[in-house]
């Protein structure tokens, strides 16, 4: 087991269970998950399909709420929040990166990066500055006004990363972020993740790719809705 760090966890799950009703049968996607994630953690959550990875992502991402148990994000119990408050939490504290990039097709690179800022009510001028800066940081400074359809997969995913960073979130959640990319572009994306973690960002990568555990400082394996193992690599501190 990992030694308990001294600082406050950014994410804490206490006895989280998630139940679905499929037809007449009750499916328990997660049962009794306890987890603490600390600021600066670089985590990969691994597991075969059907192990509850997606459910885990939805709950961690505040897209769904636990059936039983508590979820503290930055000390705030989000397991009982209203829909509006949950949206607010997502927009303020979380950054999402999806397997299929999920950019909005009718918007340009800069405008896509601005979307989370728009819902936070950041002024036009300020959000434009932030978006241009982030686009430049992910190497798309020359493609600010391109549409997603005019970009390669790797470029689109970099836009998505910039978008996830725009509201300066507490945690970045990446769901199979390299799943649709060739190894070269995938490698580029992972390098960006490494850099972000080095800058102190908390990243959670959800994946089925075993190779990822070599990169991240902490690996959580899920099996049948439970945490099978939780290992921190030697010499890494959150």
């Amino acid at each position, binding site marked *: 087991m990992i030694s308990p760090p001294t600082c406050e966890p950014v994410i804490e799950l206490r006895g989280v269970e998630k139940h679905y009703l499929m037809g007449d049968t009750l499916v328990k996607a997660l049962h009794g998950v306890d987890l603490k994630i600390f600021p600066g953690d670089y985590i990969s959550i691994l597991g075969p399909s059907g192990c509850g990875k997606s459910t885990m992502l*939805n709950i961690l*991402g505040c*897209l*769904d709420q636990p059936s039983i148990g508590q979820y503290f994000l930055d000390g705030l119990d989000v397991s009982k929040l209203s*829909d*509006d408050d949950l*949206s*607010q939490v*997502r*927009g*303020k504290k979380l950054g*999402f990166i*999806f397997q299929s990039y*999920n*950019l*909005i*097709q*009718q*918007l340009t690179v800069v405008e896509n990066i601005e*979307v*989370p800022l*728009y*819902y*936070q*009510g950041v*002024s*036009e001028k300020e959000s434009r500055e932030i978006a241009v800066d982030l686009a430049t940081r992910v190497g798309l400074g020359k493609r600010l006004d391109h549409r997603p359809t005019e970009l390669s997969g790797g470029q689109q995913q970099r836009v998505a990363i910039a*978008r996830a960073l725009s*509201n300066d979130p507490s945690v970045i959640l990446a769901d199979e972020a390299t799943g649709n990319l060739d190894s070269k572009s995938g490698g580029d994306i992972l390098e960006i993740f490494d850099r972000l973690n080095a800058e102190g960002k908390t990243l959670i990568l959800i994946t089925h790719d075993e190779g990822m555990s070599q990169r991240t400082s902490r690996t959580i394996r899920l099996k049948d809705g439970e945490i099978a193992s939780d290992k921190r690599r030697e010499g890494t501190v959150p």
Partner: protein
Amino acid sequence: MIRHPLLHEFSLFRLKRSVLLGIKSLWMHKLRSLLTAMGIVFGVCSVIAMLAIGEGASYEAQQQIKELGSQNVILRSVKATDATTAGEQERSLILEYGLTYRDISQIQATVPGVLVTIPAREVKDFIWNESRSIDSSTLGTVPWFPEMRNRAVLRGRFFTEVEMSSRAPVCVLSQSLARHLFPLSEPIGDTVRIQSSYFRVIGVIQDDPAAASSETEDKNRRSAATPGAAMEMLIPISTLEDHFGEVLFKYRSGSFEAEKVELHEVTVRIDEPDQVMPAAQAIRHILERNHKKVDYEMIVPLDLLRRAERTKQIFNIVLGSIAAISLLVGGIGIMNIMLATVTERTREIGIRRALGAKKKDIVVQFLIETVMLSGAGGLIGVALGLAIPLVITHFAEMVTIIEFWAPALAFSISVVTGVLFGIYPAFRAAGMNPVEALRHE
């Protein structure tokens, strides 16, 4: 409540961004957006155009009726339909029919509120100016005729009471007759001839506004007055009696006709507007008693006016229904497309929700898009609706009147339609589960 200035700025900023976003989304599917808005375009355009045409038509009709004088009751002699078969008249070869001086004196004596009556007799024959002639009517009447019938003397003057009592051979031509007989020269001071009598022209009067309307109104009971529409000549009634006598002879292409009509036309002026209808009723009773055969006709301009107003009301109801139906159809079209759009953009909705959009934000986004669609349709419709009446006026020479409120009303209805039919798709979009929306292909 004191509002923070930032808050105000903030909501305006959001609105502007939402509108820009809406434009982008609609612009992605230009043809679809255009076709969707088409229903509203036609609805709005037809409302404005039909209102303009309807207003114009009823304005024209009311203007004509008003020119007849809303306080007047006009009586005209007509040939009773069975007059020719009545034995006595046929034997004497003289048709005797129509209003009499007795009718007038009875009306004046018994109907309360009668101010003046204007008797008139008519002779139909060729009117000559040297070699130019026209088969037209000559009306013998009284000096206060123009005033009572709201007809302006355009040039010269009308004849006076002195001229009437002295039976002076003077005449006033209607505008169209003057134009026909004197195409190049000035008619006033010149003379015209009927049979062997000469009359000096002293004035030109406006055409009879009722001539055209009464002609179309009742073809079966054509009045004894002017079939030649507005062409007529006015002379003192006493002069007419002097020159043409009691029995009027007409020669028409070989045949011969004689009629004995005391008065062809009588205008009764009632002093109070609200007494017109009861007085008209009383006059009708008197005439019914005096004339066994219906050899007269009665025109009550006020009655016509009321009927015209009722017609206009019905027209407005029909118009309103058409407008409501077309806007309903347009609205349903918009709703249909917006529902399809919401399904198509399920994923976008999921992304936005994941990135912090509240349900309210999604509702606003789709509602703004719908309203912009219908509003744009409304604007195009207003433009077309303003242009069409101009084209109609230009080519069909119809009067069209665009009331200032018509485009405003039609446009606001289009916006309201957008809101009404946008609410359901917008709420459906907002009600989606973010997890499922994100997974949507």
